[in-house]
């Protein structure tokens, strides 16, 4: 990615972040009203719009998605850490995943633990870690992820299945520790 693209993307991030807030708010609102929600992939949308506007500038979509997904991860982890820091010396509070979202009993996602597990996964298989980042933090669908990573949807699915299982196991171990 070109240096100036990267720069303008960074200045755009507050807007991406704002959009993230909007999506989250919409999510909560609908969740409370009992809708099931399939949020649009923000990154995907933002990219398409930019592409339409400046076709010559944002050609490298894979990079755009990767950077946007990565920044969302950064934002979330940063906030989760900040919240931890607030709890002086106390038990770390977990970010609770709405139970309705996960069949199979009570579960919570500790974002910080997830982040650390993702780092460990990256050491084993960088591609899988990148894929999880795009899917989970960037909100891309299987097909979009395949597109962004230039691999087949079937491969994405395979990687996704095993990475999720591994991460779930890691987090489980973490919560028992």
């Amino acid at each position, binding site marked *: 990615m070109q240096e100036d693209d990267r720069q303008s993307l960074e200045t755009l991030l507050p807007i991406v972040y704002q959009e993230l807030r909007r999506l989250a708010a919409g999510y*909560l609102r609908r969740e409370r009203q009992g809708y099931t929600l399939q949020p649009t*992939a923000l990154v995907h949308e933002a990219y398409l719009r*930019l592409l339409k506007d*400046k076709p010559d500038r944002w050609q490298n979509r894979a990079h755009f998605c990767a950077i946007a997904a990565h920044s969302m991860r950064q934002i979330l982890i940063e906030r989760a850490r900040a*919240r931890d820091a607030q709890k002086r010396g106390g038990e770390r509070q977990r970010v609770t995943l709405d139970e309705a979202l996960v069949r199979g009993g009570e579960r919570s996602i500790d974002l910080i633990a997830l982040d650390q597990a993702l780092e460990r996964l990256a050491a*084993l298989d960088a591609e899988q870690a990148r894929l999880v980042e795009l899917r989970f933090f960037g909100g891309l669908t299987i097909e979009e992820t395949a597109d962004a990573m230039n691999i087949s949807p079937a491969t994405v699915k395979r990687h996704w299945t095993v990475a999720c299982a591994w991460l779930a196991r890691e987090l489980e171990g973490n919560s028992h520790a």
Partner: protein
Amino acid sequence: MTPARWQQINELFHAALEREQPTRHVFLRTAAEGDPDLLREVETLLRSHENARGFLDEPAWGVAAELILGEPAASLTGRQLGPYRVVQEIGRGGMGVVYAAEDQRLGRMVALKALTPEYTRDPIRRERLAREARSTAAFSHPGIATVFALEEIDGELYIASEFVEGYTLREELQTGPLAVDRLLPSLIEIATALAAAHERGIVHRDLKPENVIRRTDGQLKVLDFGLASTTASSEAPSFTRLTEVGVALGTPGYMAPEQLGGGEVDARADVFAFGVLAWELATAEHPFGRDPAAALARMTELMGGGSASLSRSLPVAGLDGVVRRCMRAAPAERYPSAVALLADLRSLERGATRQPAGAIPLWWWQCHQLVVSALNASMTAAVWLIRQWMPRPYGSVIFLVALMLATVSVTLRLNLWFTSRVHPEMLDRHRARLFPAVLGADALLGTAWLAAAGLIAGPHDAPAALFVVVGAATFASLALIEPATTRQAGLDRPAARN
């Protein structure tokens, strides 16, 4: 674990997944013969795969919605906080929840804003906020909701300010644009408040329709003055800066490009926000579009140094020019503060037919029109004088052609000059229509001067030199001087070209 080992586990995991439950176990036993560790790895993975179906299926912004938005603050309604009795919640913003509360020391109602922890946990920011609150509290103006105090109660920060009952301009906009007769007075009211603050060096930083309330008696009040200061130092790593900014970030559509980029912000950022606000009040539409992604694209344009391209004109004559100047990408091209802006709005209100003082610095452009007109006319006269020196029939032909072209050019230029004096608000459209003809006529005139010079050169070198100089000057003027004065006059906007 090594990547190679992980690869091995992966393969076995997928192979096992393809088999149905009863045969799966047998398959695994056989496949992982003599490697109990591998067997355990794959089995636990399979188990967690079964148990955690749907794990991570929801994107992060759904899972962590609460985290992104901050904890939904517990309502303080009914509680006693120091001298304040909290009566009811009246709003939620980026900085925190706002309550109507009774200050029991003075027996008056106040708006009490409970600041979110993100806003206050950092000591540097806290100190800065305290300083801002002090400077704002020392200042009162009828158009600004006065800040009474920054209170620290049980370790939490609260801002107590004037309680204003009424509707925000955002609410007012829901029923469409402001009525034309109400528009300018409202803008002047807001600009008056801004100007008073700017004169004292106080910058709002987050002006938007949500932050302006129309009281039940009609008076407008600007809220949250100077409190939106958020950014840490600009050297902070961008991600940290981002999250920092994110907490108090208003609607990005109102932030000046330099503010979005995290740069230093002064009164001119408020001027930019005022431009957006004015546009919105006049049209009930956001100038960059409602959609955040579109706004984002427009903002990139702005940050690249472009001007906000606005396609329509506003209902009040002359307001267009003022608003466009507010929304210039480069701070130096905007009004230096709301003081100058207010002066222009006032002169619009007086219905001044003259160009509002300083709204667009037209002087150089006007001069240019007059000088070129005078030059074209006198050169045509000069051709008349020297026509006998040219071989027949060139003298007469060149003179007649020059006369025709000069008539076109001078007429149109004087016409534009006249428009700029009498109907500045129409100048944009007028110029866009007429200028191609002027350009063509002048270019041909320049050619005519050079031709005349060629025809008289030799016996009459001195006048020929004069014609060469003027011909060259004509082209230089078209290529360099005219664009410069036009740009300086602010007539080169995309809108004019569209």
